[in-house]
């Protein structure tokens, strides 16, 4: 299956219509989710009153941050084992997006934390710390790739880091259950299914799906740009070899 996607040509043809579709779905889902979340659902005083509406950004951002890291690690793994170029391109394209979503999660979490917990940041909170470190990992991944002199080396170095760093994700996911944390326990993605009231759950899920679509669309766009870049570089090298 990987090899089927691994063909850059096929990917270009696929993403040609898939990316716009992703953007359209993203607009619909995020639009509805936010409209519901920001104006329709009742506010919840237990979670800080109106500030809880930030949840409809915070939670999808948190999910996407973790998912994008996992996606980057999996792509790196595929590249490392099978050397499919598209997987490397995907991993490279995911990194900046993941960093942005992680930053959004951190920012919205802090904004939410100030009124509800009375602090912007708690240093020994395992969840906050591990999300912060995921942010560092994304930055480190990009810095590492940027500092390599060839594309091949950049891909190898990045893949090693992405795979090793994947230990962070389970730590993030289970940190609230393992440690005492200010953060609330999982209530959507749990072993016994969602425990959240339906008024909140549906807009949240819609928003989450919308973010996923947006993420998928942006990834494809970045990948297309990278593929064009590499084609140009290859053509240049050929020219130089002949000239």
């Amino acid at each position, binding site marked *: 299956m990987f090899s089927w996607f691994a063909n850059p040509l096929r990917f270009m043809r696929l993403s040609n219509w898939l990316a716009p579709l992703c953007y359209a779905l993203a607009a619909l889902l995020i639009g509805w989710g936010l409209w519901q979340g920001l104006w329709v659902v009742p506010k919840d005083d237990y979670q800080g009153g109106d500030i809880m509406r930030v949840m409809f950004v915070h939670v999808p951002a948190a999910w996407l941050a973790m998912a994008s890291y996992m996606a980057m690690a999996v792509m790196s793994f595929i590249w490392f084992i099978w050397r499919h170029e598209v997987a490397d391109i995907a991993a490279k394209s995911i990194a900046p997006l993941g960093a942005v979503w992680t930053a959004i999660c951190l920012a919205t979490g802090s904004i939410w934390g100030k009124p509800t917990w009375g602090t912007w940041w708690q240093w020994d909170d395992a969840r906050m710390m591990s999300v912060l470190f995921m942010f560092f990992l994304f930055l480190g991944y990009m810095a590492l790739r940027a500092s390599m002199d060839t594309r091949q080396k950049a891909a190898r170095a990045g893949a090693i880091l992405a795979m090793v760093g994947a230990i962070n994700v389970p730590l993030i996911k289970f940190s609230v259950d393992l440690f005492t944390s200010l953060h609330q326990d999982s209530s959507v993605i749990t072993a016994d299914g969602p425990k959240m009231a339906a008024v909140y759950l549906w807009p949240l899920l819609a928003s989450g799906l919308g973010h996923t679509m947006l993420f998928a669309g942006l990834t494809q766009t970045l990948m297309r740009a990278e593929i064009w870049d590499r084609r140009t570089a290859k053509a*240049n090298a050929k020219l130089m070899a002949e000239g």
Partner: protein
Amino acid sequence: MLRGVTSPVSGPLSGPLLSATGLGMIRGERVLFTGVGLSIAAGESLVLRGSNGAGKTTLLRILAGLTRPETGDVTRSGPHHWFAHREGLKPHETPRTHLGLWSRAWGSESDLDSVLSRMGLKRPADVPARYLSAGQRRRTALGRLLLEQRPIWMLDEPYTALDAEGRDLVLELIEDHLKGGGGVVAAIHGESGFVPTSEVVL
């Protein structure tokens, strides 16, 4: 980019000790070489030629399996010795401890003292590498070639920093090795001192 051609003389009976086909390499958007093929059988030697920056060291590293070629394949039939610009000496190691370490690592049984005296390192045998002269460092690293019999020798500019006597010594080692059925690949500027079976010009 391959301007020279390997001469396709094959070994007496056995297969080649080392062979490579279609090697190509790119460094920093510059094509160093493409389509390099070579093969060395027992008793054969190959000299890599080319001006500074042509890619000899890079090709040697590819043959040794240290660097991955952009295209092409390398087959080595056995272990090899590696001797390059960077000698692999730690500043605190003396000729004796360095050769001792590698002889233990490789499980070789050769006599350290005789290796040291063969390489002309009797006197500085216990001087840490950071105080050794350039030639003494090279001689220490060359000593590794004597620790263990290995079919293939890969040498990057083996005469660098050696005095006349040291040069003769290396030549003698190479000739003994070739007579004993070994193979040698060496990157050399100027006179090689021996008649190579084939040359590759990059």
